[in-house]
């Protein structure tokens, strides 16, 4: 660890992993509810489990992003963090807000939660991924601003690199676009239109800046390739991200009451969205091939390469699969969407956070890399999780295709619930793959507790 203030990243990373575990457990509950409908009913109805599953995902990724930037920015800026204390306070505020929110979801009927938390003052709840009560939403804004402030102040007082600049821009975008979550008009079409300004412009826009910056940082560290080269390509890749991704928002505007021309704009630009991901894959492998040093942390290299490949598969390929309007007409709102969502979030965001943790955590614990035994376990967990999520995606894709056929294309369309019965075999298989994923995650967690001789940090 070069700067003592980098240590604030540690609690963020630990919280991220803990919440990740929670996310997976609730995912398994939901997966079972797909086939055993009354499992845990009425204690945890499906909608509650889903809310917890998706919200935990968002929160743990945010924890990961924050921890990563608190680790990365001091090193990039070659100075201590502007205010480590603020980072720690922010951590506890965010953790408390997150925990209270999840407990609220689990213990109180959602309608009562809405009433108690001032939803009548400003309707913002009850929209997918934005289910958080008003105080939590305000809290997220405050936490994001505190994070942004701390990082920007650090960058300003130290060296300004492309990586910290891109990261800061991504964070700024994250904070700004989240503000649209406070806009909830009665007009359903407008509601949905601007809802995507949070959801799409986050995951297919500004988050990709954060992703790119984090990946570039790790690649510089583990390959020793010239910073100029890596930062140049970082700019090129995120340019393509914005060029394709911003108008690519249009692929959500086909069937929600928005004008038909979005079918063209959305199809064309979102069809190009795989390009930046493909460039990222080529770039990551290129840099690793051109490496000038053998970094002792082999696991981190694996996570980094895994990110670039799985992001391309999940966000790029599986996104492309159903992004063209004529295909999306049949695929919209089916298990195919779920398949894409799972692989994309895992491949792009879960993996990049795990990459960062894999690189930073040993350093935070006072060594360049973990002992070999721990690294081997980590790699095992990578393969277990990656292969099982890939199978989850395949099973959901299968479920989606059959669903589309039976419910939407067949000359005698079946009802939604009847189709669900037909595809239960896919759901069972998915649940099985989910269990393997859980095992992978547990192996990952165990890898932190493996002892052995490790090289001291230089």
């Amino acid at each position, binding site marked *: 660890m070069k700067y003592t203030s980098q240590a604030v990243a540690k609690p963020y990373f630990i919280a991220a992993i803990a919440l990740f575990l929670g996310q997976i457990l609730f995912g398994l509950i*939901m997966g079972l*509810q797909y086939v*055993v*409908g*009354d499992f845990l*009913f*009425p204690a945890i*109805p*499906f*909608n*509650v489990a*889903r*809310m917890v599953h998706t919200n935990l995902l968002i929160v743990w990724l945010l924890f990961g992003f924050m921890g990563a930037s608190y680790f990365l920015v001091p090193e990039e800026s070659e100075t201590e963090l502007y205010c480590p204390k603020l980072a720690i306070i922010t951590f506890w505020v965010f953790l408390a807000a997150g925990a209270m929110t999840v407990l609220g979801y689990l213990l109180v009927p*959602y*309608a009562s939660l*809405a*009433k108690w938390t001032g*939803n009548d003052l400003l*309707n913002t*709840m*009850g929209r*997918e991924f934005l289910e958080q009560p008003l105080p939590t939403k305000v809290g997220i804004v405050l936490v994001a601003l505190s994070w942004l402030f701390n990082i920007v102040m650090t960058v300003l007082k130290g060296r300004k690199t492309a990586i910290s600049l891109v990261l800061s821009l991504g964070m700024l975008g994250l904070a700004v676009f989240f503000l649209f979550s406070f806009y909830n008009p*009665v*007009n*359903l*079409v*407008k509601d949905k*239109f601007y809802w995507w300004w949070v959801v799409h412009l986050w995951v297919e826009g500004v988050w990709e800046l954060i992703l790119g910056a984090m990946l570039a940082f790790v690649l510089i560290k583990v390959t020793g390739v010239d910073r100029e080269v890596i930062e*140049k390509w970082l*700019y090129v890749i*995120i*340019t393509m991200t*914005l*060029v394709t991704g*911003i*108008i690519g928002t*249009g692929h959500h*505007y*086909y*069937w*929600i*009451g*928005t*004008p*038909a021309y*979005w*079918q063209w*704009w959305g199809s064309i630009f979102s069809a190009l969205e795989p390009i930046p991901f493909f460039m990222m894959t080529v770039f990551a492998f290129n840099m690793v091939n051109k490496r000038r040093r053998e970094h002792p942390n082999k696991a981190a290299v694996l996570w980094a390469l895994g990110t670039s490949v799985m992001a391309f598969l999940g966000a790029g390929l599986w996104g492309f699969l159903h992004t063209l309007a004529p295909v999306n*007409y*049949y695929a*919209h*709102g089916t*298990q195919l969407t779920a398949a894409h969502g799972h692989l994309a979030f895992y491949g792009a965001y879960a993996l990049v956070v795990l990459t960062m943790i894999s690189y930073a955590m040993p350093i935070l614990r006072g060594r360049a890399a973990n002992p070999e035994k721990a690294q081997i376990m980590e790699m095992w967990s990578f393969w277990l999780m990656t292969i099982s999520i890939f199978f989850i995606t395949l099973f959901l894709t299968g479920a989606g295709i059959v669903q589309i056929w039976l*419910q939407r*294309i067949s000359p005698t*369309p*079946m*009802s*939604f*619930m009847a189709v669900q019965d037909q595809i239960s075999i896919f759901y069972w298989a998915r649940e099985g793959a989910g269990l393997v994923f859980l095992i992978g995650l547990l192996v990952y967690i165990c890898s932190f507790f493996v002892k052995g001789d490790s090289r001291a940090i230089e």
Partner: protein
Amino acid sequence: MSATFTKSMARNVFYGGGVFFFLLFLALTFDTMKVLPKRDNSQNITPAVAHGKKLWETNNCIGCHTLLGEGAYFAPELGNVYVRRGPDFIKAWIKGQPTGVPGLRQMPQFNLSDMDIDDLIAFLKYASEIKTNKWPPNIEG
């Protein structure tokens, strides 16, 4: 690869390209907002519809159902349920939950008053009349 390929130019292209496409997006958004009244059925938004939407949200219906294809994929699409099932069926259905049939997916009982359910149905009727470019492909959603 080309010899002239500088980081500063890559950065300029990033800023220029980002701003350019965001402005284009704003222009398209502007046009969309102008055209929307012809498509979004907003002339039929009554206080009942507004209340219905709030009930839709505060009971987290989107946590299981899709609405115009967006939401969770656990339970049927409700954007066109008004057309598919009609108001009476919907009312009876909401009141009759949960079915309690072992092993089947269960919808919670939300304890809504008759008036609340009517408003919710008004909202679903409004949603079903939005011009969605003929989506869903058929009545099953």
